[in-house]
């Protein structure tokens, strides 16, 4: 078999290193404090506060919102353009399936228990403009899912990969 050079594939960006470093820094600072014992009065409580943070929104919360928004946008467009419904509704259902999985993963209230997200603004009356807007949303959604996948811990990354891939296929299906 002939070995050729590795072919450049995909992106090579990293963006989560900074947050990883700062997290390590915090852990180290925490360890130092523990070593120092209780001798020093803990005037600066900022570090201690970080040891038991108040419940933060899950990092995937924006992605969950986005899934709901994308679904709502597709449903609104399907209502405005019934001839596109057969094409759009399966895509909306996929986003809803993603939302259900993301809600389960993040412990958020399940999609069925919350009111359906409302799309921002009504879809364009022109058919091709409506499709173009949907493509724009899917493209942005694909990019945010790719970023989330790159930054996620191992146990979440497969689902996020599928979400990114699904959004990419939606973009294709809307062409």
């Amino acid at each position: 078999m002939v070995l050729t050079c590795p072919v450049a594939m995909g992106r090579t960006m990293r963006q989560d290193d900074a947050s990883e470093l700062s997290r390590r820094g915090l852990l180290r600072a925490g360890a130092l404090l523990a070593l120092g014992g209780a001798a020093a009065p803990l005037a600066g409580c900022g570090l201690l506060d970080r040891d038991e943070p108040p419940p933060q929104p899950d990092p995937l919360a924006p992605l969950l919102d986005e899934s709901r928004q994308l679904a709502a946008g597709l449903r609104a467009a399907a209502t405005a353009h019934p001839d596109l419904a057969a094409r759009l509704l399966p895509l909306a259902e996929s986003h809803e399936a993603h939302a259900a999985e993301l809600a389960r993963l993040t412990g958020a209230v399940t999609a069925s228990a919350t009111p359906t997200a409302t799309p921002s603004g009504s879809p364009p009356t022109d058919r091709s403009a409506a499709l173009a807007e949907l493509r724009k949303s899917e493209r942005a959604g694909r990019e945010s899912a790719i970023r989330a996948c790159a930054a996620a811990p191992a146990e979440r990354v497969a689902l996020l990969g599928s979400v990114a891939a699904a959004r990419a296929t939606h973009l294709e299906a809307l062409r």
Partner: protein
Amino acid sequence: MSESAEALAAALTAEYAAIWAYGPVGVRLSGTERKAAAEAEAAHRARRDALVVQLSTGGGSVPPDRAGYALPFPVTDRASALRLAVQVEERTAAFWRAALPVSTGAERDRALAALVEYAVRATRWRRSAGLTPLTVPFPGRPG
């Protein structure tokens, strides 16, 4: 072998099979579809080559290619060729998805790029084949 090397070795065997399958697919297609099949095959070859280099420089074992692979169904015409192309892309995508949890950094980026690319290609083949829906909710997820 590390978990990551195992997942990549599995992806390599999937790429071998994909490249092999595009042989019978390509001959049943014509025009732009045949061209698309050639491009798909080239993408699988590129990933195969990169994987062989990566696995051998990492000191891991490189699984060998086989002389032939069993097709899931006979490919006798354009319709069955397109159906096989859909399956090839979806199955290969699944191997790259499986590599995601055991990879980090640039390796994870590459696995994700492969998953996304093959999922999109499966959708294109579904359109050519006239299959609906054009998409699946969770590309690469087993079952």
